[in-house]
């Protein structure tokens, strides 16, 4: 597997990390994704995706302060790196370019 590849779910998580800029952590990403996608996602899937993104260097993480609603555990916030932005841009460019190639005919 190419280390620069991006799975579909990973892409969604990466997008959400970017969208939530500086406020992205596990539960927040989960809630926003569930809302956008209108389906249930398990938190562990988010964790796995975040770890993979981090290993590939697309996101950075840092610990936040102590909060009460997590039983005293710190949040781990993620931000997108330049590499992450680049891969998203490339993904987006590939898709739009192919999308543009769709002939203008009716699909109904």
């Amino acid at each position, binding site marked *: 597997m190419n280390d620069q590849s991006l799975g579909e779910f990973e892409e969604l998580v990466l997008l959400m990390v970017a969208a939530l800029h500086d406020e992205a952590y596990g539960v927040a990403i*989960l809630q926003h994704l569930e809302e956008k996608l209108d389906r249930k996602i*398990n938190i*562990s899937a*988010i964790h*796995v995706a975040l770890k*993979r993104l981090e290993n590939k260097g697309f996101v950075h993480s840092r610990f936040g302060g102590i909060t009460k609603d997590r*039983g005293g555990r710190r949040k781990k916030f993620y931000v997108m790196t330049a590499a992450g932005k680049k891969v998203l841009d490339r993904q987006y460019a590939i898709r739009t370019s192919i999308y543009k190639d769709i002939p203008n005919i009716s699909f109904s």
Partner: protein
Amino acid sequence: MSHPPKWALRLLRWFCREDYLVEIEGDLFELYYLRAKDSIRSANLFFVWNVFRSFRPINWKVMKAFGSPGMFRSYFKIGFRSLMKDPRFSLINLVGLSVGLSIFLIIALLVQHELSFDQFHAKGERIYQVIQVFENADGDDPEIFTSLKLSEALRLDLPMVENAVTIHGAASTWVDANGRKFFEEDGIVAGPQFFEIFDFELLAGEKSQVLSEKRSIVLSESLAQKFFDLEQPIGQEIDLGYYGRFTVSGLMKDTPANSYIQFNFIITQDYDIYFENVASWWPAWFQSWQGNPAATYVLLDDPSSKDDFELSINNTLKKYLGDDQKINRHYLLGLQDLHFNSHGIDGRVNEYVKGDSRQIQFLMGIAVVILAMACFNYINISTSRYIRRTREVGIRKAMGAYNHQVTNQFLVESFIMVLASFSLGLLLAIILTPYFHALTGIDLDFNWITVLKGAPLFIGAIVLVTLFAGFYPAFHLSRFPVVSVLKNLTISSRGNGTIRKVLVTLQYVFVISILAALIIVNKQYSFLGGRSLGFDTDKLLVIEINSGAVRENYINLKNELLQQADILNVTGLTRMISGYRSSATVNVHAVEEPMQNQSMRFYGMEADGLSTLDIELIEGSDFNGQTSLDSTSLILNETAAQQYGGHAALGQFLKIESATGSVLQAKVVGIAKDFHYRSLHEPIGPVVIGYYLNPIEGLDDIVVRLKGAHTRETLEIIEKIHNKYDTNDVMTWEFMDDMIQRAYEKELIFHRIFIGASVVSIVIALLGVIGLAAYFVVSKSKEFGIRKVLGASFADILLLQEKGFFMLILLASMIAIPLSWILADLWLVDYAYRVELTASPFFLAVLSVGMLTAFTIYLVGYRIANENPVNSLKYE
């Protein structure tokens, strides 16, 4: 505030790597509190679900140690390559470890089999055998035999007895079943409670019902098949010869091999027909409180009421026996203790060989030593191979490897080998089990259930050996500073040299002690095996006298027997020596010295007794054949004669008193060579032999010496003649050889297992020595090359190598010899007749190890020394 389930949290913390834990735990808690606002129950469930879902390899602790999957794969790839680089040494490692393991497994199974005796009874811990202690002049004589009436009385009178049953062996009998005749020996007679107390599995019939009807018989599966093939056995009638007709009421699984009570059919207690057929004089005694024909088992309400039982049983016995009768002491022995702890207790329900806990401990010791040695070999050879890989470590680290990655590399390599050897060992054990059965007759229960049961141990051993073998390189080499490792490419840094020497010395200590120990143990066994009993047991038939009629007409019976062409000699004894039943103990003193009492064994023999048994007379004369003279003559064995001054004992008058008060006064006429009248393990005590017609003990055994190998015809003729005089009983007979073989059967099997195990451990040990020696010679190729270039001869080079090794062997012997000497001495302590410890086994062990080493070095060194030095010098 509510809290998610603690156990789930603990589970998460157990498997999850720490650096991820804060994040995952935090998120799970946040989600939990969100849900808990609505319902705590669903929040709990959701939390548990999330913990389970988080159980992904990426979160596992172990994955952190291995790093990325790519690295993980690389460990295996490099591991395989480095093992394949030295296929010979890898093979030695593989063979040594797997053979050692398979032997360990087989012995462990054997030990487990022995330890599992009678564990299959659900109520086993509450079942006890009642032991009755008969008091004799020379001490207590505990026996399993009790009155037939005891079990019922106990059941009725003692509150702590939940249930009780009477059992005794059935006489061998002809069985008429399905129109065919079979001879069956292994039946028992039991009360109806039998199956309610013991858990012998019934295939057909109700536990409480099968023996409740009179004249019922329960057959074992294999016996039913033998009798009826595929026909339905239930309800069929069987004729059991002396016992009469029985109806099959149940079918049971064959008794497990690990059962103290062995039988293949079981009949209800119903003696009328039996007595009519067999022993009409018997029933009164047999069924009375005075008779002691049967074993009694009780099921107590709780193991703690055992003491209470032993106290209260006397009152019960008094109630039934009456006050004027002597009450013997009774005590309980747990069913599960019978296999190992019933030595010294006479009687058994059926043919069965008791276990010897000392042998089991010894076997366990051997098994552990074999496995330890195999592991030690493996660790030793691997470590010495790893020492050469310092440069690899240096390069790895220079390229940016972390310490833990280097550690992982060596651990994975070690793991590959250990896993392969263990799997091979397991396979080997499965393949070897049938051969083990052929060798020892012991059926080992080797199936997937036992394998699964042993799995935790197995996995534990794999981890342990992996860690030990990989320990040195994994945790020591990996910590070397990069520069010094790379700069100092040779392996002969001082630290490594010392480790190498320690390893080789330890290996030699191991091999020499084991070799010496094995030689000594084998010497002891062949000493015991080759030791004569002191009389000739060959072609000797022993007939037990069961009726007064035979006793009275003995001379006629003897004369009739002697007319048979196949019979060499016939003699009568009060008790056969070395038989199942022991002889009377008597008090002996010289007539002039009434206070000097000696306790001795008494045997009464006919005049031709000594010559028939082939007991050597060393001084004086034998009985001369005249009853008037012989009945006042005595023969002492050497041990007894010594009490009266050896030679001076001849002509002395001795007074012999039996436990019952009968007295015999007679003159010592001869001294016989010591013979074993008990087990070979026990020392020979003083024995006094009197005439067979004496006031002490009556004639009880007839011994027939046959001319040739016995045939069925001879036996039938003897039986016919016997039955002329004893019209009631079946002739009870046994060949002396069989009797002795049975007594030493377990010992023989043990000896065979021991020899097998010794051979294996020697092979493994030598394999280790060869491997180690060869390895060091190979690693010195470069030195060989330089020495040759500088003009050394082959002999010089070789001698130098051998000298180094011999110093180590010498050092090892200095540790090994005292060690094994002490161990051997400790082991021999328990034998009454033992070999003397001499220097020769130790010398032999050191010599053979030394020669083997020299030979290995010569072989490997020869090849290397004859190579062109350019080959070894041009690289590395």
